[in-house]
């Protein structure tokens, strides 16, 4: 299997604190990789380094074999790498539909051709598909800020898939989402993974969610990679249990 994302010896320190310490891993095309670890273990920092939000102190990130270390997030996104954030990040003043169209528009044409094109740039049908897929049709015309937390979370995820990305990094997609919505989210992610061949990397605290969704799991503790394997292997790993529960 070809790897779509390669991270080599990545290290990020803030002053004297090393948040991510010599982490290397690969993500294969089409897989759903989970990253778990206690709070403060460096998961989000790792994401931010991969996605260009932070510039790593050292190490290399490659997408499709191309070095992308320190590339601007907007450029990385146009290469087909998309993300969601740990804390809710939708545009509250825009409607649900406009949020989705925005999420796809920068992948169409150039800035100049976009100015003279139709306002929705022909993304209407794709936005409607996402609205259907994530069961948001009842609120499609509402401002995103008026949606419930769970619905905003679904919208957030839908936005990440709007441009048909090849690699999606989801930072705690299940955080604060109720059980029904959670099942919904898992089904949608599986569907997109199977149908559009999108590759996922998921950071999550909800063990049940990670274990049932992911095919392979990495475990971070204090900035280091301490384990890697199938959900069953991770569940049984002594080091993982120790990292979570202490001695």
């Amino acid at each position: 299997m070809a790897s779509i994302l390669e991270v080599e010896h990545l290290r990020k320190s803030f002053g004297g604190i090393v948040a991510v310490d010599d982490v290397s891993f690969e993500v294969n095309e089409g897989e759903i990789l989970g990253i778990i670890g206690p709070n403060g273990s460096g998961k989000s920092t790792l994401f931010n380094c991969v996605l260009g939000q932070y510039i790593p102190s050292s190490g290399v990130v490659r997408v499709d074999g191309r070095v992308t270390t320190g590339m601007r997030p907007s450029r990385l996104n146009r290469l087909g790498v998309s993300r969601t954030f740990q804390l809710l990040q939708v545009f509250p003043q825009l409607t649900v539909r406009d949020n989705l169209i925005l999420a796809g528009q920068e992948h169409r044409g150039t800035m100049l051709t976009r100015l003279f094109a139709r306002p929705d740039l022909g993304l209407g049908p794709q936005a409607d598909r996402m609205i259907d897929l994530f069961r948001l049709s009842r609120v499609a015309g509402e401002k995103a800020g008026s949606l419930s937390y769970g619905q905003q979370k679904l919208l957030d995820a839908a936005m990440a898939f709007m441009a048909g990305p090849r690699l999606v990094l989801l930072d705690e997609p299940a955080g604060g989402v109720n059980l029904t919505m959670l099942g919904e989210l898992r089904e949608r992610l599986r569907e997109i993974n199977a149908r559009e061949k999108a590759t996922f990397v998921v950071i999550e605290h909800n063990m049940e969610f990670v274990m049932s969704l992911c095919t392979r799991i990495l475990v971070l503790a204090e900035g280091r990679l301490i384990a890697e394997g199938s959900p069953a292997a991770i569940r049984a790993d002594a080091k993982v249990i120790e990292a979570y529960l202490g001695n």
Partner: protein
Amino acid sequence: MALGLFALLLFWIVRSSWGRAFMALRENPVRAMSLGVDTRRYTLMAFAIGSSMAGFAGAVYAPLVQYIEPSSFNLGLSLNILLMTIVGGLGYFLGPLLGGLVAILGPEWLRAAQGYYLILYAILVMVMMAFCPQGLMGLYERLAKRLGAGAETRAADAATRERA
């Protein structure tokens, strides 16, 4: 004429995909960037569009007064223009127009107060900032919503009474 032309042009830009990107940029630049919005270029364009409007305003201002000198473009004027957008409502299409009306007509209305008009004006602006930071358009939107909600409750009440 110029106002109408520019209003049309702006309306078109605001409705286009650029307008959406500008709004996204205002609400959440980090998220916008993660969705491929080139924040640097859009910010630059926003400045360019704003500045070109100001430049054009200057170009029509000169033949109007037939005499220009540097002192007519002092700090006070800059503040006044900034005030127009804030009083009218930041982020509303009609905000600056409304703010402009207030900033031009306000001193006229308050002429009776003579020398005190600036103080009165300042107090008005401060009260508005404290109670309605979204400006006059925001105030209008809030009132419209309240009236709309009131009408809805009344309609619902009437419907319940009818059933009973």
